[in-house]
């Protein structure tokens, strides 16, 4: 009964177009006003939670990674990464599209965000592909889809948020994203290659060994970021949050001193833009924590979990239901909010069914990737339509075949847990 009421209030608020963060907070206030007649104790808990909810060093990886991503993106790393990717795979059939996918995968190791990946790689590769005679639809589909690698390949903001809202280890989740990320890049490249052969897309001249080397050297400093982050976390040199802070300083040095895409006097602008995004994310996180506090105090996760156990759902049926629910949610909300609202609800159920929390994290992340290229609120679609100057509808159609590729991939990741769990199992045993 309370579940239905809470969800009803939330839904009603969301439909007005109120920011998701405000809607979450208002739901809590409304519920308290209706049922605890604003007993002063509960109200004080709310104001306290608004601060203590954020009082966790793990959450602070979010602003650091946002800053480091902004710095390198503005610092001109994209062009170097693309040059390197072109030198590696440009000579194959459909080489430009293959290179675009590879470049997105590389860029994903620098940025924890999918739309940022689409912007950075797409704004260069999309015009290039169109110029070389690729159908525009195909080009847009490739870019929007492979941009979604941003949240699967570590570092990933979505994964940090999952880790925070479920108290799992962000380091383990990052490790769990490595193999699925590489595999997905491989799958996308394979599909592109097959399409390119069938439709006879152009190739590029083979790059000389020297060009491969020179372009690698150029891209090296950017690509080192993921090595520092993952190596540092795994080697126990620093925590994920500290790794993110080190990454931000490293990105500053790379962007200002090595790539010279930014000057010191650009810093206020970059800091402000990173602060804007991270404050938005942190504000959603605060209110989502408040919301899940309400859920917990009404014992809703336990009730749901008990219900699922009583239905004697088998794990695979549960996972199927999770996938469907997440895909539906992905039509209306952006990833961070979905994870913050649903992960605390789903995790207890998954645990009682013997599903690994890390595996669930990867499943949710891949689901979010699909949500990004799926109308009506796929963020990648918006960004891609902006870059390509194509309407939303057309971009959505361009991405449709890729949605099916990703769905097939989602099934693979969901039902073959070893893809996600092998690497963390190996490293953290």
């Amino acid at each position, binding site marked *: 009964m309370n579940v239905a009421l809470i969800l009803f209030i939330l839904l009603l608020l969301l439909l007005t177009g109120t920011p*998701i963060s405000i809607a979450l907070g208002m739901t809590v206030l409304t519920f308290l006003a209706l049922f605890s007649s604003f007993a002063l104790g509960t109200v004080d808990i709310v104001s306290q939670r608004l601060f203590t909810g954020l009082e966790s060093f793990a959450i*602070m990886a979010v602003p650091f990674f946002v800053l480091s991503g*902004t710095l390198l993106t503005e610092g001109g790393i994209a062009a170097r990464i693309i040059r390197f990717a072109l030198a590696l795979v440009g000579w194959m059939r459909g080489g430009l599209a293959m290179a675009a996918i590879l470049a997105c995968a590389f860029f994903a190791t620098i940025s924890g965000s999918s739309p940022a990946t689409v912007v950075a790689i797409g704004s260069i590769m999309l015009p290039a592909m169109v110029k070389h005679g690729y159908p525009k639809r195909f080009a847009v589909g490739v870019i929007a889809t492979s941009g979604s690698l941003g949240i699967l390949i570590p570092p990933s903001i979505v994964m940090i948020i999952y880790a925070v809202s479920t108290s799992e280890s962000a380091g383990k989740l990052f490790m769990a994203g490595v193999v699925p990320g590489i595999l997905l890049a491989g799958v996308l490249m394979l599909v592109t290659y097959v399409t390119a052969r069938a439709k006879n897309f152009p190739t590029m001249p083979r790059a000389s060994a020297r060009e491969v080397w020179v372009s690698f050297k150029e891209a090296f400093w950017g690509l080192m970021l993921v090595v520092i982050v993952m190596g540092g976390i795994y080697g126990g040199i620093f925590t994920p949050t500290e790794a993110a802070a*080190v990454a931000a*300083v490293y990105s500053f040095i790379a962007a200002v001193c090595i790539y010279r895409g930014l000057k010191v006097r650009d810093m206020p602008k970059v800091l402000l833009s990173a602060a*804007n995004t991270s*404050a938005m994310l942190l504000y959603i996180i605060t209110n989502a924590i408040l919301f899940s506090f309400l859920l917990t105090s009404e014992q809703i996760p336990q009730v749901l979990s008990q219900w699922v156990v009583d239905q004697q759902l088998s794990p695979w049926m549960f996972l199927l239901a999770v996938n469907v629910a997440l895909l539906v949610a992905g039509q209306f909300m952006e990833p961070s909010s979905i994870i913050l609202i649903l992960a605390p609800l789903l995790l207890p159920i998954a645990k009682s069914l013997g599903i690994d929390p890390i595996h669930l994290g990867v499943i949710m992340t891949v689901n979010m990737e699909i949500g990004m290229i799926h109308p009506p609120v796929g963020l990648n679609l918006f960004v891609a339509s902006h870059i390509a100057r194509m309407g939303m509808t057309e971009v959505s159609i361009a991405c449709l075949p890729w949605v099916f590729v990703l769905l097939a991939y989602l099934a693979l990741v969901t039902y073959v847990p070893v893809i996600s769990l092998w690497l963390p199992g190996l490293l953290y045993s």
Partner: protein
Amino acid sequence: MGRIFNRVLDRIEEWLVASFMAAATLIIFAAVLHRQSSAIPWLWDYTGALNFSWAQELCIYLFIWMAKFGAAYGVRTGIHIGVDVAVNAAGPRLKRVLVVLALSLGAFFTAVIAIMGARWVWFIHGTGQVSPDLEWPMWVVYLCIPLGSALMCYRFLQVMARFVKSGVLPAQAHGAAAEEGA
């Protein structure tokens, strides 16, 4: 007069969030360097005397302040996105009503939080609590809730006033949110 006030407020807001961000980054970076320097004996002779145990706490406080004031800045830049399916489907009149409703909900919520936060700060002030590492008075640290939320409320009202007058919302936001969002 009002215009000058707003301009000064804008600059203070921007300056605060940008410098909190930079400060937090530098502090944590320094703390990591400091800890790693313990592996180098000759360096540790100098750095060993320093104490960075407060760094995490300060970083958290800086980011919470950054988040509270940044959220207010975000209202101005239109980065707080909602579910716009119904709004987009609505006709122009209903759309106008929905937008004003959504903005007033934002203003109402942030106003309530500002008042509740102020009550909370007052209560903590009475307890004389200090933070565990820095030993700063907690009521000062908690001040970001009423201050940030009040500023955010002001921003919602500002955006609403502009919308009612001219029908314009801050650069709507998918492009901006997509910069690094999600």
